[in-house]
């Protein structure tokens, strides 16, 4: 077996090429990225759950963020919504209690809902959700914990294989919004894209990967 093939089989694909780890590996301030394989609960659309897998496969190039870790996938129970929600919330709480910041990748917006509940349990107060389209940004203090919501359905039609709308943001505009997110971003959810397995699909996956990198950088920065 040649070296290239050996590397291909030896390497476990991870988000942005970061190390793979577990809960006990997390340290405060670290960015934990986890796949969320559930797309049938909130604004359901089949195949959104595969975004995490596609982003891992597409993560071969570029420098990995220094302070991030691929935590694997959140355990999900898509056919038992109550059990699913409490399980996802408790896993998110476990991550946030370490002081790490959490990014859920893929699936539908139900992951964002669980993140909100987990953040409230950890911080003891409601944590505002900042939409990547702008939303309630306003004058949030730098120390205010916030959750960043990156709905990839906000991408303009040119960037996605099966568009839901003509107008929207380019990946660069989305990245600029992410960088400008106010407050102390303790968690984020990137969701809403069902990646197609064709040339168009590779365009949208690369766009989503660039956005994930921006989100990881923004979370590492913490307070804005």
């Amino acid at each position, binding site marked *: 077996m040649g070296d290239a093939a050996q590397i291909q089989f030896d390497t476990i694909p991870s988000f942005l090429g970061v190390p793979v780890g577990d809960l006990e590996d997390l340290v405060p301030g670290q960015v934990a990225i986890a796949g969320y394989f559930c797309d049938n609960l909130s604004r359901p659309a089949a195949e959104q759950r595969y975004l995490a897998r596609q982003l891992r496969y597409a993560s071969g190039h570029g420098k990995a963020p220094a302070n991030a870790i691929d935590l694997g996938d959140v355990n999900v129970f898509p056919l038992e919504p109550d059990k699913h929600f409490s399980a996802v919330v408790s896993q998110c709480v476990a991550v946030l209690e370490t002081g790490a910041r959490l990014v859920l990748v893929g699936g539908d917006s139900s992951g964002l809902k669980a993140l909100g509940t987990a953040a409230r349990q950890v911080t003891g107060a409601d944590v505002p959700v900042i939409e990547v389209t702008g939303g309630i940004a306003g004058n949030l203090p730098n120390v205010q914990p916030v959750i960043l919501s990156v709905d990839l359905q906000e991408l303009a*039609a040119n960037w996605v294989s099966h568009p839901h709308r*003509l107008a929207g943001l380019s990946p660069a505009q989305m990245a600029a919004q992410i960088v400008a997110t106010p407050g102390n971003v303790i968690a984020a959810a990137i969701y809403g894209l069902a990646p197609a397995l064709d040339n168009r699909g590779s365009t949208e996956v690369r766009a989503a990967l660039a956005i994930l990198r921006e989100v990881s950088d923004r979370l590492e920065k913490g307070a804005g």
Partner: protein
Amino acid sequence: MISAQKQMITNGYAGLPFGKVSQCDAGSVGLLGVPSEVDSGPRYGASLAPDALRKMTGQLGTSLPVNGRDLGNLDLSGDWLGVLMQLVTQMADRDVVPVVLGGASDVASAVLAAFPDRPVVAAMPLARRDLIERPSNTTWVGLNGEQPADVWDQISQRMMDWRTARQLDEVQANTLDVPERAVLWIDLSVIDLGHAAGAVGLNPGGMKPETLVSVIGAMSCSWHAIVITGLAPALDTRGMSELAAIETLNAALRHG
């Protein structure tokens, strides 16, 4: 049967209930599919458009800014052009706005024949002689540079307002001189092939889909009728052409 499947069958375009003309209230829309097919050229599939649009609005959860009924698809046996004219006339008499989803351009010709004296706003790449010869002026949206000289002469002599696709893509569109009420005809071939390929006409110098939406949305015009033709959904696997048709129709209906 799961509930999502039930919804697909019982709801029409953009969630409108299926019904008859007699069930349409004044001020609402009556949406009619007319799945005629182009009779020449290598690009066809216009007959699939009405059902493809219904399906896509269901998938996207689109809703219209006005109430109305989906009247289903017209049976294309016998004198269907005559029946179509009769139906749109009935709707107009009841103050219902006919929204007709073709089909090929013969669908629009029949709708326009039902409103022989009304002005027209036509979004299409090539000016049609039958529109130029109507007694009321036509406002042209998205023409390309391929018009015969005599067509330009007639448009000039009649002092019809027009904008090319390039003009509309490069500058704001709200300078068009539009009448207070008109019939709106959108031929999807007005959109550039590179942006949305699902049209029966090839138009490499056409408008961007978002420009078409914003141009039509900026018109403070109320419509006697709206007709969309030339959509061939099977030629556009991404669904951009259907999306353009759906968003343009919504933009048109926001003003009336």
